[in-house]
């Protein structure tokens, strides 16, 4: 078994599925000859040719729109939008068409496609390259939103996304693209969508997170363990549809929940989880549900982006606060 970075997990998933299914087509800007600006599609055009790995003109709306047409014809297009900051011209196509085709034709025409974008801050990029607006898509009925946080889950979840008969917005946390490796088997086996992954068992507090913030959340759990607080860590992975059963189950045992996400606080996906806890888990709660998040501001330019992003200290502080409720 090889050891892969998260990025390599993405790349291997592509290769594996494109060998298995000739209907899988990759399209986007710079994905072919250049292998993608992050090399996510590296080597694919060499192996699969220019008809299956397409360097498109610079036109996000039609790139996603044509993928809808391709999917309607039974191909499995995977669109790369170079950064989440450039997904916005395509939101019209995603929300007005991709998310609705099945419903408005009562299943006559469907839209099996994946829209991938690197997202999140922390790589000292210029402005507009550090977006975390996953809540926009989590709010849309008819699309799935999937966020891997590790090489194994990047591989397995991307395979699942490609095979899913409905549109998936697949957001890749670029800060951890190359931060560490994992042993992953190139088995072609998909991981399940619509389910959380429990990364650490604990009894005192449930920490819920996704994407790059999982890294800080696990570090916070380790630090808390040293002072006798035993934290359970859950990787949500599929933000929509949300697997609340796993989270409710955990909070029923711990009674406390802290949600960690890099995205801005107000109306983020953390708010949905907190609302669901209030509706369905109120009798389990011993303490308020806290969110450790980015702020309701634009992410500062890179020199100050650390001030915005939720670090280990903020997570530990929040846990200490909820531990104060007995």
């Amino acid at each position: 078994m090889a050891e892969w970075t998260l990025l390599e997990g993405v790349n291997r998933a592509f290769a594996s599925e494109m060998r298995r299914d000739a209907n899988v087509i990759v399209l986007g800007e710079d994905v072919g000859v250049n292998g993608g600006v992050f090399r996510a599609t590296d080597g694919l055009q060499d192996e699969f040719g220019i008809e299956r790995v397409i360097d498109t003109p610079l036109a996000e709306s039609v790139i996603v729109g044509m993928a809808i047409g391709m999917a309607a014809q039974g191909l499995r297009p995977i669109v790369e939008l170079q950064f989440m900051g450039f997904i916005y011209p395509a939101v019209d196509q995603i929300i007005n068409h991709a998310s609705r085709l099945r419903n408005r034709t009562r299943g006559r025409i469907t839209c099996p496609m994946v829209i991938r974008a690197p997202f999140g801050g922390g790589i000292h990029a210029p402005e507009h390259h550090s977006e975390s607006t996953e809540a926009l898509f989590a709010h849309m009925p008819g699309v799935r939103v999937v966020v891997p946080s590790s090489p194994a889950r990047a591989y397995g979840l991307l395979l699942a996304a490609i095979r899913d008969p409905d549109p998936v917005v697949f957001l890749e946390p670029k800060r951890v693209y190359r931060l560490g490796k994992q042993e992953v088997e190139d088995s072609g086996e998909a991981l399940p969508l619509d389910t959380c992954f429990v990364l650490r068992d604990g009894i005192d507090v449930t920490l819920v997170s996704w994407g790059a913030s999982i890294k800080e959340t696990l570090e916070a759990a380790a630090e808390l363990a040293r002072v006798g607080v035993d934290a359970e860590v859950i990787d949500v992975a599929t933000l929509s549809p949300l697997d609340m059963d796993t989270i409710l189950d955990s909070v029923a045992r711990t009674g406390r929940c802290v949600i960690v996400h890099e995205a801005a606080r107000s109306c983020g996906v953390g708010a949905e989880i907190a609302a669901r806890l209030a509706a369905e888990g109120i009798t389990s709660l011993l303490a308020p549900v806290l969110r450790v998040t980015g702020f309701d501001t634009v992410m500062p330019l890179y020199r100050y982006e650390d001030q915005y992003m939720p670090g280990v200290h903020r997570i530990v502080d929040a846990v200490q606060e909820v531990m104060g409720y007995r």
Partner: protein
Amino acid sequence: MNIFKLPDLGEGLPDAEIVEWHVKPGDEVSEGQTLVSVETAKAIIDVPSPQSGRIARLYGKESDVIDVGRPLVAFGDDIAEPSEAKAKDSGTVVGEMESTEDIIPEAAIGRHHSSSTIKATPAVRALANRMDVELSMVTPSGRDGVILADDVRRVARILAEHGPMEPLRGVRRAMARNMAQAHAEVAPATLLEDADITGIAARSDITPRLIRALIAGCKAEPSLNAWYDGHANGRRVLERIHLGLAVDAPQGLFVAVLLDIQNDDDDAIVARLAELKGKIKQRSLTPAELRGYSITLSNYGAIAGRYASPVVLPPTVAILGAGKSRDEVVARDGEIVIRHILPLALTFDHRAVTGGEAARFLKAVITDLEA
């Protein structure tokens, strides 16, 4: 194609039920010919055709209710002929927007600040509920004044030692409620003064003289015999005096009412008081005898106490309190003498009564007592 809509059948009736159709699709009709009989809330009405022409379609079966303004009959051909132009600008380009001339009866209201400052999580509240502990009795030990589960358990233990709480009923409950309301609303001010009642023969009960003096006070300053409505910001100064007499009974405090007492002479007052005492003993006071007082008298001095600031009960604006009378050394004409002194306390609602009015009232009371 022309669509004839159900016209307004008069008197603003909103709809009508189809009783009987007199035509069917394909019929040629002439203007004025009866198309249909409909029943409104008031009558059965025959609806005449607005035009001559061929009936294309009927909208509704017998027993259907049709709203005024909705299609009733189509003339001409509903397929081959274009329909008439729309009557007015719909003000939209898609869909159907409802519009009415009704005035919208709402406006933003000021925010009321929450008075509850009890902080406890739902789990702790549920625990308190299960353990029958009132959170208002629990001193919080958590950060920021938050009640913790242990706090609830502690109070539960204490209460278990001291027995269950006695819920207030009847007269005690009414007192708690009324006093709280008075405290929240009234702006009390108290005048204290003494009356020299050496001239009044030592009797067992000074109440009849107090009542007489109070009547004199009301005649001198009627504004203390009034009802004040703080919400409507208005008052009624009453000509008739309905005296509320504070009564200390085994079951608690209540205020018995002597209605229309302004013209009673001394004997009448004595007689009414005796009657009242009898009723109190037999617990046979009716609700009417406990309501509607316009000024209150409290003779707490019959038990103990010199001066007080008794509570004004809305909607009244004054309460006169009499303390325990005693012999006192006073200065008179440069000489030290012993006189029998009755301490008096007048509390009034300063929202409706001025200090001057209260002072004049009290002076008249004292003048009558010293007469």
